[in-house]
């Protein structure tokens, strides 16, 4: 896919994001994997009580964890794209900020989000047993290009907060060339307690 087309796809949303977040400076984030940034993260310095724990530290701590709890699909292991083979996916976070990422074919959205410190939990480790990696696909056209969710994924989506027609679990969406330019939104967790919660 050519760059001009990508730009064309991205620009309107960039303007949108800028408007939404005004008056702060535009926070549209474009991050690409380069050889340098794709190198394994350095282990975090000794735990410091000074800065708040950043997600990058969490991820790094996770990756350098000395033992494994379960053999289920592990997350956070994505390959940097080869030059010329980058696929692009844009995450719109809970604050409306867009993060455009260059990724490889075969990566799933949960792994991608976690590798880039986006706020996506993946409580079950990407085994399609919870709904914490719920994403909403912004364009129906892209949603239609994905293989249909299977029963297990749909069962979990039924429990997701803020379910939409184009909702998917991030762990089940694998990047392919057809999905180049995909845009997904992370649902805000705004569910309020209901009386039925207490019955």
């Amino acid at each position, binding site marked *: 896919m050519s760059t001009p087309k990508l730009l064309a796809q991205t620009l309107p949303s960039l303007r949108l994001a800028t408007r939404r977040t005004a008056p702060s400076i535009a926070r549209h984030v474009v991050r690409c994997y380069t050889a340098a940034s794709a190198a394994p993260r350095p282990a975090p310095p000794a735990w410091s*009580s000074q800065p708040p724990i950043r997600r990058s530290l969490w991820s790094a701590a996770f990756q350098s*964890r000395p033992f494994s*709890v*379960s053999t289920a699909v592990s997350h956070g292991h994505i390959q940097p794209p080869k030059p010329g083979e980058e696929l692009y996916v844009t995450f719109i976070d809970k604050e409306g900020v867009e993060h455009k990422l260059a990724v490889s074919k075969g990566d799933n959205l949960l792994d991608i989000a976690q590798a880039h410190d986006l706020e996506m939990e993946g*409580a079950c480790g990407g085994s399609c*047993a919870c709904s914490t990696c719920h994403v909403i696909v912004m364009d129906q056209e892209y949603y239609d290009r994905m293989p249909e969710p299977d029963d297990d994924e749909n069962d979990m989506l039924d429990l997701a907060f803020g*379910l939409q027609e184009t909702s998917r679990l991030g762990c089940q969406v694998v990047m392919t060339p057809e999905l180049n330019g995909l845009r997904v939104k992370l649902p805000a967790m705004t569910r309020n307690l209901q009386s039925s*919660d207490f019955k």
Partner: protein
Amino acid sequence: MFPVRCLRARPRACWQRVLNGLNASPGPSVSRSVSTAHSSSPGGRPLRLAVIGSGPAGFYTAYRAMSKIQDVKVDMYEALPVPFGLVRFGVAPDHPEVKNCQEKFEEVASSPNFTFIGNVSIGTKSDHPDGATVPLASILRHYNAVVFSYGAAKDRHLGIPGESTLKGVYSAREFVGWYNGLPEHADLAPDLTQGDEAVIIGQGNVALDVARMLLEDVNVLRKSDIAEHAIETLSKSKVKRVHIVGRRGPMQAAFTIKEVRELMRLPSVAFHPIDTSLVPPDLKSLPRAPRRLMEILLQGSPTRPDDSPPPTKSWSLDFLLKPTQFLPSATSPTRLAATEFARTTLSSPFDPNAYALPSDSSTGDSSSSNTTVVLPAPLAFRSIGYRSEPLPEFAALGVPFDDRWGVISNDGRGGRVRHEERGADAAMRVGAFPGLYCAGWVKRGPTGVIASTMEDAFATADAIAEDWAGGAGHARFLNGGGAVAGWEGVRRESVGGGVDTARVVDWEGWRRIDAAERERGRAVGKEREKFTRTADMLAVLG
């Protein structure tokens, strides 16, 4: 709707009495902290946070608090020597993927700002003889904030004859604890050999878990981390027919589709078709989740009850039945023979919030043959919900507990514990109890999956972070938000009070118990063989 129902009059400002009267060093530390307490990091002092309970609510609150607050030290108290609460003792052994959230908890625990204090019960005397207990009042003196995330350790009762007297009537919660190796119920020894029928009262996911344990091939369970005593008992089970009974209909049932689908997929296990009159005729008009649930209920299982040869096991969802009594056996009067139910009707059959009415009130037909159903089965499980209890010191400290809903009275979203006080004009004022928060089932009631507890715990941690950073000063926190000693202070007091804190299990201790359990599991081809006695857990630590 807030989970706040019964705001009773309470002694005026008991918490202040407690804190002022009992605080070891009240004067200087309080005044100093108040004067400088307006920034997010007053005088560079950390927020000392005690988390009571190490289940998903406690860990997700700790995780979020540690990522949102500049400088926070979390001490997590756990009554058992081992962490993770219902992730370890509630999640079904054949759902190992659900337990992957433990990876996140391990990450949290690896922070030097996190301390695990296992085998220490707060206020309630430890339910096992090897544990230590410290008073809640001591916790309040040595922390700036406390999160109650101790869950729901009891269950709701039916209140019908025979419930607590007849052999063969079990609590589903205890049964779950038993097969998951919870020390408290390691000696439950359920008798599954008295007949081939079982009745489960309640239609939530716990009921479906119990049904699956009874119906699933024991060789499938054998590879899970299920307790070995459960494998022995289940392999001798004679149960072939399971009734899962509810007062209401399929549109009102609490179970979720994943658990239903799992039961439907069990090989050689048949599902008896449901009463289709309880399913809305026009499924397309339903929202997605109930529509898909109704579809799978109508579709049923690939194995049919009338298959030839007949399936080895079967189950059904029996709707519109309210239990009225457990009936004793004629030959052995201490033993359950059957469960009697009254038929109900629904106020509005397809309304998810419909309630159950006695069926004879609408038809006028009160002949017992039409309104009473007896299910003969020597085995019955009560599975109508878990229940939280207040800590014993709550009443004295003025921490409000809502008995009706079984939750700590709180502001709903942020989990700030409510505090009410009678002002000079005798009017009740309701505010937040400084420094006290709650999360998980003790905050919102015993429902929901781990994702809901995570979301709820995050909301509590966000409230703590917001209050800590707030401009109102740290009067919103215990001990004026000032310098406190945390676990060190609690331990010093406990030693003075004669409590043996030598048995405290830290995270490294848990890691050794964990390694020993995995080693035992390897020997028998399982991921883990849990210790089911606290003494055995502690023996690993020498």
